């Protein structure tokens, strides 16, 4: 047995998926071959399907909807996980004032601001000058323009986040900004930041300060696509704070002078050494600061989601089984509609196994059609829900069906076509003469 598992572990993932699919479908295929061997029932099955086409269509639709919901749920959950993970992937380690990791994750990564104490100059200095830190950047949120949050940061962070700019150039002075791909401002547009975000924003609090967009980021699939990024000195300046540099020094960008560093709610830290990330997290978890991996927080949220998914999967499977059971009970009733024709076949000398094959093929056709249609339903549902979620959260969710869904459908098909043997048995155990009289 161990040899089998070791062998299985060495099989490439794609092949594992294909093999598993085959294993899951095998019962259905084997049953089909065994049941149909030596006979040609398909023409008759076609005739039966056509005779009660609306009833049959209803059955197929029921199966399709239940399969579609199950498949859609699983795909959507995975799409959400992938989308949120991609939106967070540039954020290796975030340092902030002690508080809630989840809140800070929402604030710093997904730009859902929360009011927290600031990281002060000496702490910043300690982070920025740490030998293992490759990149440290302030994430100073709080202002907005319309629905776009304005984030004060540094040029290296913009490059880290989005890579090469899609247009224009990097901000180079206090009055310049780089817009996200979906921000409502183009290169050359001028705007005045509002204090705060959302309905409570005070649009005239920063009157007199006007900034010009000089560059545009490519799409990142995260809420940052809506954001407007400015030099952190600009945020400090519109709030009347120190500039981060000694008086007379008009540079923007790091290094900042800790004595004139007004503070930032969060700092993004990146280390190139794997172990250093863990070490830095440990080092900056102190009385004054909290350090966390957004990815780890997200992963634990996902793990929780995963538990919910398990429950949802069980529920989805249960619904599917219930629907299948309903459909099979319906099939027993349906086979009564066909009872006279089936009795005729037996009167003409058709072997029981042939009649069995006709009923089973008929059921299998409904189930298979429902399953295939269900995949289509799931695909459409996932497409639609993803669009809504993306629009609402600005997190690009690209859910699509993948192997787990196909495995689920294959398992469902196999299970139900095996269950469909029951109505088939029922059909051949009826009395020929009684049924023949109609």
């Amino acid at each position: 047995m161990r040899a089998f598992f070791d062998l299985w572990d060495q099989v490439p993932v794609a092949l594992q998926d294909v093999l598993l699919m085959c294993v899951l479908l095998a019962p259905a295929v084997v049953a089909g071959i065994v049941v149909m061997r030596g006979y040609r029932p398909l023409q008759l099955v076609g005739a039966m399907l056509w005779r009660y086409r609306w009833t049959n269509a209803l059955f197929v639709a029921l199966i399709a909807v239940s399969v579609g919901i199950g498949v859609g749920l699983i795909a959507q959950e995975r799409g959400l996980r992938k989308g949120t993970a991609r939106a967070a992937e540039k954020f290796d380690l975030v340092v902030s004032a002690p508080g809630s990791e989840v809140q800070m994750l929402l604030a710093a990564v997904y730009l859902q601001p929360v009011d927290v104490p600031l990281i002060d100059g000496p702490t910043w200095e300690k982070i920025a000058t740490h030998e293992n830190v490759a990149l440290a950047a302030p994430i100073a949120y709080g202002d907005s323009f319309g629905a776009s949050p304005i984030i004060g940061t540094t040029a290296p962070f913009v490059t880290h986040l989005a890579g090469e700019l899609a247009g224009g150039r990097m901000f180079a002075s206090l009055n310049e900004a780089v817009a996200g791909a979906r921000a409502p401002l183009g290169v050359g547009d001028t705007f005045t930041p509002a204090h705060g975000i959302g309905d409570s924003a005070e649009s005239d609090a920063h009157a007199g300060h006007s900034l010009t967009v000089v560059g545009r980021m490519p799409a990142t699939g995260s809420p940052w696509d809506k954001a407007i990024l400015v030099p952190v000195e600009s945020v400090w300046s519109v709030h009347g704070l120190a500039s981060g540099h000694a008086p007379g020094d008009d540079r923007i960008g790091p290094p900042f002078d800790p004595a004139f560093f007004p503070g930032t709610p969060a700092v993004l830290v990146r280390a190139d050494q794997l172990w250093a990330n863990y070490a830095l997290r440990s080092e900056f978890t102190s009385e004054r600061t909290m350090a966390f991996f957004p990815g780890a927080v997200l992963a634990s949220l996902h793990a929780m989601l995963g538990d919910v998914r398990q429950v949802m999967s069980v529920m989805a499977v249960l619904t599917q089984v219930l629907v299948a059971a309903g459909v099979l009970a319906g099939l027993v009733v349906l086979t009564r509609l066909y009872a006279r024709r089936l009795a005729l076949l037996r009167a003409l000398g058709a072997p029981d196994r042939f009649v069995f094959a006709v009923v089973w093929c008929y059921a299998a056709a409904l189930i298979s059609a429902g399953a295939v249609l269900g995949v289509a339903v799931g695909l459409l549902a996932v497409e639609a829900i993803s669009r809504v979620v993306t629009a609402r959260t600005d997190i690009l969710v690209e859910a699509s069906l993948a192997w787990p869904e196909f495995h689920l459908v294959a398992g469902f098909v196999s299970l139900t076509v095996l269950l469909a043997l029951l109505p088939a048995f029922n059909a051949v155990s009826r009395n020929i003469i009684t049924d023949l009289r109609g």
Partner: protein
Amino acid sequence: MNRRTLLIGVGAGLVATRAAAEEVVNMRDLYNKDLSFSDYAKARAGQRIAASGFMAPPLKAESSFFVLTKKPMAVCPFCDTEADWPDDILAIYTKRTVEVIAFNVQIVVRGALELGTWTDPELGFVSRVRLTDATYERA
């Protein structure tokens, strides 16, 4: 009925048998005192081995990479220093997307042993020893 549940259903008992029967590598056995690779490690390079340990909180969600630590990786102000790192951790590149297991639950990882410094092109992390194409389960 996802794949995991299914496989657990099919193979729960068998997995237990397997775990009991195989040789599980101790991470320290992969190094000599001077942090060069041990003969033991060299002899098994490229082969699939099993190692037990704990899953450090992953740096990224939905990745296929995690760090296997010898001791549970809580936030421990006394032990997370550089000195402990090289021979106490193993970089794991998994076959499928990592499903997080709590940092204090012992797991067994099976994968192909790779030696030598390598920089992850996507994550940018440098590792000296890795298990690739790995699968893992609760010990």
